[in-house]
């Protein structure tokens, strides 16, 4: 092995903060249905604690062996509405509390999959599920919820989407004391993948094996540092965008390989099937771990300035090209995330007026997810929130990609006020919502937006 390869790898770990962002264990809970809710809750608790009892310690031990930090250890479960067929909202709340307890007892900070898949229709128990969410997300600490309301194959369920708009408001209100933090644990999806390891939208899809390990690769900091090094060593005058894209590709290859290595080792140690590596660049509020910073390195002074969408398109594409060859199986969301509150540079761009909701929405056409962690005024009405979500879902449905919305209407705050959740959930100014209150008639139609023409391929 060449010594310069060794030294560049050491640099990635020491100076560029190479890590594995998350190892997420997916657990199928469909065999946990008991004769009554109490037995179901006991079975849920037992299955999670028995499958994941040594999960955190195993990840830590592999992390020590290879000298690569595994930042987050998480669990995703079968969308809970499938297990809760026939249950009432109180029963869903009891299941959430069992999940919360199990997550706490196995030492993980977040569990995803308190979810429903309602893209075509709603069952009575899925309506009960929705009713339970304000209490679930305010009375549990670790449980995250997500709902899939649309797919490119089936269209968008606008009845469910309208309920989502109201649920976002209700959850935020139920967690008013924490500035609506509960809404940060609730994501609405179009084309939600069943193997995404990143929270809050991770689920263990029905198509998956009983237990599976999925890995999320390192954050954007490594790419940003690699680009800075390239520019310093090569000189701006000698670089063009295709050369920069090539550097992103090669760096992503290395980053993904690390994820693949850790995933395989944890999977072997726990005797659990290794699922996928998710290539997503997931920023954190930590300085130097920002997707927004990559925009600035590539030449826009603020995220949201003209050129931002083109940069994001190139970044997202180069990340996929580099990562796909590096891993046996790529899956999940795999692209670049632009979660406003979790990315300090994006949050700054909101603060100085460079990044508005409309520009953010256009950027989500070319990134891997959508309107993520966007704080909006608490006064925005439920139907406007539903309509914002509908726009985002339409982008996903028509473009055959995953889109999501995680909006936080911060109770009592208006545009320009500053909200902070601390930790990984970050902080940002509240983003203004223009044209609020003008979409009620559209949302009130209900029904479904039919599947797009290009879904008819049979």
């Amino acid at each position: 092995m060449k010594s310069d390869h060794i030294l560049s790898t050491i640099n990635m770990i020491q100076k560029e903060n190479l890590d594995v962002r998350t190892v997420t264990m997916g657990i199928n809970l469909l065999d946990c249905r008991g004769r009554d809710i109490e037995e179901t809750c006991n079975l849920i608790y037992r299955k999670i604690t028995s499958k994941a009892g040594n999960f955190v310690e195993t990840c830590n031990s592999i992390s020590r062996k290879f000298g690569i930090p595994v930042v987050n250890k998480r669990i995703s479960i079968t969308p809970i509405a499938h297990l809760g067929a026939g249950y009432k909202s109180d029963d869903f709340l009891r299941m959430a509390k069992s999940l919360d307890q199990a997550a706490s007892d196995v030492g993980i900070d977040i569990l995803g999959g308190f979810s429903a898949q309602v893209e075509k229709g709603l069952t009575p128990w899925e309506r009960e599920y929705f009713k339970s969410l304000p209490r679930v997300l305010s009375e549990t600490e670790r449980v995250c919820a997500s709902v899939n309301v649309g797919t490119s194959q089936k269209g968008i369920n606008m009845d469910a989407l309208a309920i989502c708009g109201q649920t976002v408001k209700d959850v935020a209100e139920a967690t008013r004391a924490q500035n609506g933090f509960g809404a940060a644990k609730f994501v609405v999806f179009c084309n939600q993948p069943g193997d995404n390891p990143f929270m809050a939208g991770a689920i263990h899809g029905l198509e998956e094996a009983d237990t599976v390990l999925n890995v999320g690769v390192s954050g954007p900091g490594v790419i940003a540092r690699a680009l800075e090094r390239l520019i310093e060593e090569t000189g701006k005058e000698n670089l063009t965008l295709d050369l920069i894209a090539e550097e992103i590709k090669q760096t992503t290859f290395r980053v993904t390989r690390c994820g693949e290595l850790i995933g395989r080792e944890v999977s072997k140690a726990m005797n659990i099937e290794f699922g996928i590596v998710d290539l997503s660049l997931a920023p954190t509020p930590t300085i130097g771990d920002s997707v927004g910073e990559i925009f600035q390195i590539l030449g826009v002074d603020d995220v949201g300035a003209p050129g931002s969408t083109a940069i994001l398109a190139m970044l997202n594409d180069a990340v996929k090209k580099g990562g796909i060859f590096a891993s046996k199986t790529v899956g999940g969301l795999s692209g670049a995330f632009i979660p406003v509150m979790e990315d300090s540079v994006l949050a700054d761009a909101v603060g100085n007026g460079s990044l508005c909701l409309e520009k953010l929405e256009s950027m989500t056409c070319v990134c891997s997810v959508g309107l993520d962690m966007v704080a909006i005024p608490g006064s925005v009405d439920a139907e406007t929130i539903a309509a914002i979500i509908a726009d985002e879902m339409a982008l996903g449905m028509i473009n055959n990609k995953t889109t999501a919305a995680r909006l936080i209407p911060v109770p009592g705050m208006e545009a320009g006020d500053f909200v902070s959740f601390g930790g990984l959930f970050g902080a940002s100014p509240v983003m203004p919502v223009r044209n609020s209150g003008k979409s009620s008639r559209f949302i009130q139609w209900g029904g479904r937006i039919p599947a797009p023409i290009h879904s008819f391929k049979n």
Partner: protein
Amino acid sequence: MKKQVVISVLSKDRPGIIADIANVIYELNGDLADMSQSVLSGFFSMIILANFDRNLPVDEITRKLDSLSTGPELTCVVKETGEKNNLAGNQAKGDVYVVTAKGKNRTGLVAAMGSYCGGREINILGYETKLSGDAYYMMLDIQLPENLSPDTVREELAGTAGQLGLSIVMQHKSLFETVNEVSLR
């Protein structure tokens, strides 16, 4: 009866050394199984593993190689390998780590690292150093005995490094292979 020997070659560097040595082995009906070669400061060094179909005396191989020598520039040493693996069982099985050390050049750095590894029964599989200005770089492939945890070695190496003014990083070798090579093992 087959015979395996290891041949060490040291010479002032010039074109044709590898050809000369390889031809001798070929003429003796030997098979060159493995080799490692490098040049340092104008001196050529090579170590070869060769297999012979018959029980060829070591003296005969040495004589033939000596015939290449034209004075003190080229020296060859031939040894029978004997048992293929004479490392302690647990040592041969342990994980391989890459240690990189960087610091100001001073005497005794390699000796200190070697002494630490020797004292802990850590086998050094490869050792490269590089002097760049006043900075000294060392890269070692080490194999840890199975009963020695990487955490312990990292901690102890950090102690040794502190005394020597070195910054040391130790990472599992498979990390470098995984990150830098196309094929996945």
